[in-house]
């Protein structure tokens, strides 16, 4: 068998969330990725996120395309629904699924290969539709499953394992997303769970398309000297623009922020995103600022992280489609069929 079931250890004193579920209830099967893979750390952060947010597992749909990253939905939330689509085309499946039922939580996990090459079209159009989903890119600059070819996010001059440098310009999903009108754009690092979890929470609760580009080093093919997506390089060049905290509805704000230093964004679910600037001039609610700051950091060789841009005011996909709130898949047939008399009447126009 190529499928490894994770042993489930039940402890009486295990922490339970508001649904009475334990952390283990949100785990998946055993990861088959390489030891030390950044993706596994992100999987852990996702589990923490959905546990803390008290998401009923069966109300969540996790989707992915093809590649190492796209394997990971099998490694979290076993009790949720999973859809491992064809290469680069998870956004279209998410679009269809959301049309059928807008009342579910949608988490997409993709990679830089899946999103920025074959999937770049669907990625762009999911953003344009403002599909209500959390879209995570586990970005390592390399194709892992086919053993180490450059991906479209590889920086110029970054080298492959055998030393050859990449010569083509990289595609930055965050800059692309902001310019396409994405309503939530963040960057993080798989090695920084403290930053990542609040971003995941905010992204999942944001109404509309939430992109989180997570630098997630590939220990086997892209963690060497010369790579700009290695653990060391990422740690040395990371530059956090905005600290983010997510406050769930009705929960108390535990952290005291110095007055005037923070920006609160109300989410449609009643929760709040608290943003505190690390950079004086950075405004995560101004699109031009955001794109310029990301661009300038990039020019300096820095990796700007945090919630780079948020706009909670835009209508999402379902609102723009003017689709009824009741999930379409729950409408009874009687509610959908006009009946025989109306068919007869309609045909008068074809007489």
């Amino acid at each position: 068998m190529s499928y490894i079931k994770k042993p489930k250890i039940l402890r009486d004193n295990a922490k339970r969330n508001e649904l009475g579920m334990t952390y283990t209830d949100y785990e998946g099967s055993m990861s088959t990725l390489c030891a030390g893979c950044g993706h596994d750390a992100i999987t852990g952060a996702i589990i923490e996120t959905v546990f803390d947010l008290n998401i009923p597992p069966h109300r969540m749909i996790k989707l992915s395309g093809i590649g190492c990253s796209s394997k990971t939905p099998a490694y979290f939330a076993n009790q949720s629904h999973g859809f491992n689509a064809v290469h680069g085309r998870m956004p279209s499946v998410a679009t269809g699924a959301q049309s059928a039922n807008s009342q579910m939580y949608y988490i997409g996990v993709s990679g830089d290969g899946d999103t920025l090459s074959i999937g770049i079209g669907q990625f762009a159009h999911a953003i344009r539709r403002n599909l209500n989903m959390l879209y995570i890119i586990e970005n390592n600059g390399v194709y892992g499953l086919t053993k180490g070819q450059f991906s479209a996010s590889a920086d110029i001059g970054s080298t492959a394992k055998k030393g050859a440098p990449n010569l083509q310009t990289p595609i930055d999903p965050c800059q692309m997303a902001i310019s396409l009108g994405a309503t939530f754009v963040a960057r993080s690092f798989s090695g920084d769970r403290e930053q990542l979890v609040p971003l995941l929470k905010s992204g999942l609760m944001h109404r509309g398309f939430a992109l989180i580009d997570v630098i997630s080093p590939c220990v086997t093919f892209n963690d060497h000297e010369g790579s700009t997506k290695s653990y060391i390089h990422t740690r040395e060049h990371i530059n956090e623009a905005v600290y983010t905290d997510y406050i769930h509805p009705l929960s108390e704000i535990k952290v005291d922020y110095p007055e005037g230093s923070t920006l609160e964004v109300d989410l449609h679910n009643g929760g709040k995103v608290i943003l505190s600037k690390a950079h004086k001039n950075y405004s995560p609610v101004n699109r031009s600022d955001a794109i310029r700051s990301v661009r300038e950091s990039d020019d300096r060789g820095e990796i700007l992280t945090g919630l780079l841009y948020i706009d909670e005011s835009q209508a999402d996909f379902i609102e723009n489609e003017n689709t009824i709130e009741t999930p379409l898949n729950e409408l009874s047939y009687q509610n959908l069929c006009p009946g025989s008399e109306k068919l007869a009447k309609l045909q008068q126009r074809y007489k």
Partner: protein
Amino acid sequence: MKINKQMRCKQKRFEVSTASHNNFTVKFANVNGTGSSSANGLFMKSIFRMGIPVVGKNYFPSNIQGLPTWYEVRASEHGYLAPSGGVDIMVAMNAETYAKDLGEVDPGGYLLYDSTWPRNILMAREDITVLGVPLAKMCNENFDNARARTLMKNTAYVGSLAALLNMEVAVIEQLLLDIFGSKTNLIEANKSALQLGYDYAKANFICPLPFTTKRENKTDGYIMIDGNATAALGCLYAGATVGSWYPITPSTSLMDSFTSYCDFFRKDEATGKNKYAIIQAEDELAAIGIALGAGWNGSRSFTPTSGPGISLMSEFLGFGYYAEIPTVVFDVQRTGPSTGMPTRTQQGDILACAYASHGDTRHVCLYPSNPEEAFHFSVKAFDLADQLQTPVIVLSDLDIGMNDWMIKDLKWDKNYNPNNGKILGVEELEGMENFHRYLDKDGDGIPYRTIPGVHPKGSYFTRGSGHNKLGLYTEDAQEYQELVDRLLVKWETAKNLVPKPIIDFSDSNDYAILCIGSCDDAIREARDTLTKKGLAFNYLRITAFPFSKEVEEFLKAHEKIFVVEQNRDGQLCKLVAMETGIHLEKLDSIRMYDGIPICSRNLVQEILNRLKEDEAA
């Protein structure tokens, strides 16, 4: 005005007899973008309203304005709906194509043209009659603005035809009222243009011609509609809620129709919101992904497309087959390969649809033959997709999808309820210890599925990678094979669920004709013609893939079967040979693939030639 400008042909072919009523073809040669299609439609519909069976075929360019376009109207007392293969009256309105149009008129026929500019070239044939009507001149004199002068020329030639064919002007005028409703100025303009043409013909030609219209009652209980509209109605009545698409000729009007029907019938009364979602995708790759996502999530979903779209959708179709997700794809076929001729018809995707995608993949296909069947098969496709948990492809074509056909009134069975197949609900899941997605509990190859979000026990993982019957990832040889073998069991089950073939026996069992889809009407007419010549043919029209046992039995019972289809490579012939036990030698493949709907005239000739060859051999 001088009476009788008409130049009679030397050999008169027509004699006034009963047979000359209601049997003629009028072909309109126009420039596209000049408003001719409304006038041509007016002409056809008026004949229909006179109770005379009629059909219209549109031969249009892949262009918006300025290129040649033709519209052919055939009145047929027997209700034959395929082109006749000849032209009795050519309305030649396009100087660019005069020569070609002139050549197409049957000997003894007529050519009507705008004599504002005399064309000597049109007098080149002595075996036809040329009728000149100064359409531009009359319209310039009677209408003020430029647009009206262009448009009303079209209505004016309808007026001339009405006089020549003895049509009831009141019927045409009533139709104008129905079309334009409250736009009185348009009604008045059209009425006066109609009268101009009518009066001119009456004053200058011998009216009526030897062949005329004559009121009948053969269209009561019928409508004139295209197959894209009826397929869309099928989607509406099947309860489809999610439609995704990327615009492509000739399937576009299917989604346009669905949109307008939904706008009318599917608004939530309380909120005014949509009880449907129509998503214009970025391409066909996404259109099928959206359809599958919605189907997987428990909505009836569909996507209309044409050949190039099928090519793009193929990978996802294989996914749908392997992961067992219901959705419906409409392939309104056009001429291939590649971009081909987007506005011409063909049955060129038979093999591409049957086996779309890599690996061992087969798809359930339905082959409607006209708009009436497009409606019923559309509904059936949703039931089959749900029952079999797989994508179902409805192969229509441009002829069915975009041309106006006369079909029986569509009837809806009040007692219809969608067959959603094996879906486990809350109660069933509650009582289960574990749910496994791909177990074949009933031995019919069809597993049980759940709708996401319904119950915690119903969760499962859907993937296109190797999976076992429990729904878990696998690379295990046995587990993999067990699952793909079970899909074959399902394929066998499908044979009993798909629509039965249409079989019609004649007095003799010597020969048979086999076809699918829009070849049907040309074959019906050809069989009538051949029967009169003492050659009776049995007939099998396949309506679905996989082939049911009735198809196998019919094939076995015949020694020689003509397989008629509209593609170059004999795709249906090959599919039948591959998928049944029949010997290839028994099949005689007849292929007509120039992009024009097939006509019985050519078909009869071809069959006679083949039989003669056989005799000689």
